[in-house]
């Protein structure tokens, strides 16, 4: 399990809204705490990573969050520019403006081009050993397969040209389980778990990337064991609530509201547990599943990321 952070490239993905950015940011923080030079990259620059680290804008060239931890946002135009300069050695710097705009349309039409520039940039950082670990806050379920499959898939459409000749070394990095892994994040709910299971299957079928870990995020605490549950049932009865209300000099209705909330908490947890069970059944036994607790307090910003990183550190 410790091997998760000993990899070089981690793609964190899952259904939208399950906390991908939070988990990616926490993994990055944890790695940096372990003295690894770490890069965290947000593939869809919505500003979530910047909000998570509370570090201001995270440009393509990177923003230092803390010693050893850098955050960046993917920008395929900038990636193309870097690629042209470094690898293709095309002297275009002056006039790339219109090229980039046109590129946008071309990239829309030609599948895999945008994806290869995304994955290519990340693999490049790994290959050049600029960082010990690159954590990718990757796209949601729908798009991530396309990105990870791009290096092998691009050959179908692009028969010649520089981009094609660049795919071999990327594939080598992506396919090595000791180097690269996917982390699927889910929550204990129906749709996120279904998508996680589906994604785990598609990763194996359609991409070279190995599934390294599944993170079940926002898992509610178990309130009662069996004996407690029986006592809870008796406590919820009219007589007991009245006794408690009298003792606390409060309204019976207020006591009932408190017990109703606990019943709801038990129900939500039980509902979630059934989905987590489905997840356990479907995911290969060799893939660890990590459980992160629901954060009842302020669930955003660096403070939350630190809490999640600590929880991850305990589990890993």
């Amino acid at each position, binding site marked *: 399990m410790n091997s998760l952070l000993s990899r070089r490239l981690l793609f964190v993905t899952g259904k939208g809204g399950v906390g991908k950015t939070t988990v990616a940011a926490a993994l990055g923080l944890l790695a940096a705490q372990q003295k690894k030079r770490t890069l965290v990259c947000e593939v869809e620059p919505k500003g979530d990573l910047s909000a998570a680290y509370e570090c201001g804008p995270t440009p393509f060239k990177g923003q230092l969050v803390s010693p050893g931890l850098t955050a960046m946002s993917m920008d395929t135009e900038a990636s193309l520019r870097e690629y042209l300069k470094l690898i293709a050695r095309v002297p275009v710097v002056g006039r790339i403006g219109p090229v980039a705009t046109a590129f946008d*349309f071309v990239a829309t039409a030609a599948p895999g081009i945008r994806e290869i520039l995304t994955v290519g940039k990340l693999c490049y950082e790994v290959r050049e050993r600029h960082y010990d670990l690159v954590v990718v806050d990757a796209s949601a379920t729908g798009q991530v397969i396309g990105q990870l499959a791009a290096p092998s898939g691009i050959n179908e459409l692009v028969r010649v040209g520089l981009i094609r000749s660049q795919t071999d070394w990327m594939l080598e990095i992506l396919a090595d389980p000791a180097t690269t892994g996917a982390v699927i994040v889910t929550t204990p709910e*129906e749709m996120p778990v279904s998508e996680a299971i589906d994604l785990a299957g598609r990763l194996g079928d359609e991409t070279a990337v190995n599934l390294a870990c599944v993170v079940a995020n926002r898992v509610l605490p178990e309130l009662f064991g069996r004996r407690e549950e029986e006592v809870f049932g008796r*406590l919820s009865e009219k007589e007991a609530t009245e006794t408690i209300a009298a003792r606390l000099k409060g309204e019976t209705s207020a006591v009932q509201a408190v017990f109703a909330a606990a019943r709801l908490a038990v129900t939500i947890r039980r509902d979630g547990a059934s989905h987590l069970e489905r997840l356990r059944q479907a995911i290969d036994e060799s893939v660890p599943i990590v459980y992160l607790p629901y954060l009842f*307090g302020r669930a955003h910003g660096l403070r939350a990321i630190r809490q999640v990183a600590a929880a991850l550190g305990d589990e890993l």
Partner: protein
Amino acid sequence: VSPPRQAANKAGDSDRALEQLVAAKEVIVACGSGGVGKTTTAAALAAAVATRLGGRVLVLTVDPAKRLADALGLKGIGNQASRVEESAFAAAGVRPRGELYAAMLDMSESWDALVRRHAPDQKTAQQILDNPLYKNISRRFSQGQDYIAMERLYELHEEGDYDLVVVDTPPSRNALDLLDAPARMQEFFSSRLLHWLMVPYRSRLVNMASRPFYQVADRVLGSQLLGDLADFFMLFQTMRDGFVARAAAVDRLLHDLRTSFLLVTTLEAVPGREALEMKAALAERRLHLGLLVCNRVLPESLCDRAAQEVADAMAEEAGAIAEELSLSDAEMAPEITRRVLEEVAGSFSNFRQVATREAELMRELAVAHDVTVTVPYQPGHVSDLASLLQMGAVIWGDAPRPGRRKSR
């Protein structure tokens, strides 16, 4: 932007406000971030309208979960609408006044139909459909998906077979893409880029301005792909006039008085933030937000101050209460009872924090639209027509609603 007509779904009042809203509209566009229950809400609203107001109501879904598709009796993907059988309503114990139809948007079928409609002749249409890049564009062009949903909505509205069409929207990377899709489609066709890409196709004399692009593109992409692209855009250009006119018409429909938006969200931080952004974007574009549905909301009682005081006192005196209770009930071992009371009190405080955050977000969201509806958290999922109708009743405001938020 109209002032709020009704701030909460208090049974009796809000069904009138909601009834007025849906009775006056012919098109309702559901929007919101992924995973908040948008598709289910759209279907539940359509079912409620068909049941209570009557008429022919269609719900057009994009990618329903299997259970919802089953609940609606959708057999597979297809643009063909199918009627939800009378017998299915009867089995759910409901006699609808109107008819409910459901259809699932088929992206590639819709694109193909669009090409056939706008191509100048059949030969060109076939050339486009056969182009290797066409299929990639029609499937992957993310704004294209949004556009197709809106375009299909326009078509259904135009055909006039339904009194109300409720349309679910594709999960976008950016919810705003949906609103701008028709305008972007127009832009795409009028852009100089398209023109530019086709220059070398028309004449091999590449003009100076585009030369660097071709040098780079040729080197990086290869001339074969570039040729394919030019072919494709050349063919596509033949559809320009039809496409532009149509996209403008779609845009007009979205702005029409008969169209309203339904914003669905949960009150969690991320979907909540996106809902606030969506509201601002709708207002900015002068699109009418009629209905806000807050889904999976925790009960109002969690925000109750008296209950919190009881919970705090319970945590404090758990041991003493446990002792007292064990005297009258031998089954309640004091040690276990104390632990349970502490857990119950702690859990209340935890969930109260969440509910308080939710309430604050509700307050921020509940400004400047017609009707707000909250749907309480329900374990389990909408898996058949009966549960869908039950959710519809909650939205409509005539279902028994434990823990409903008070009206503001």
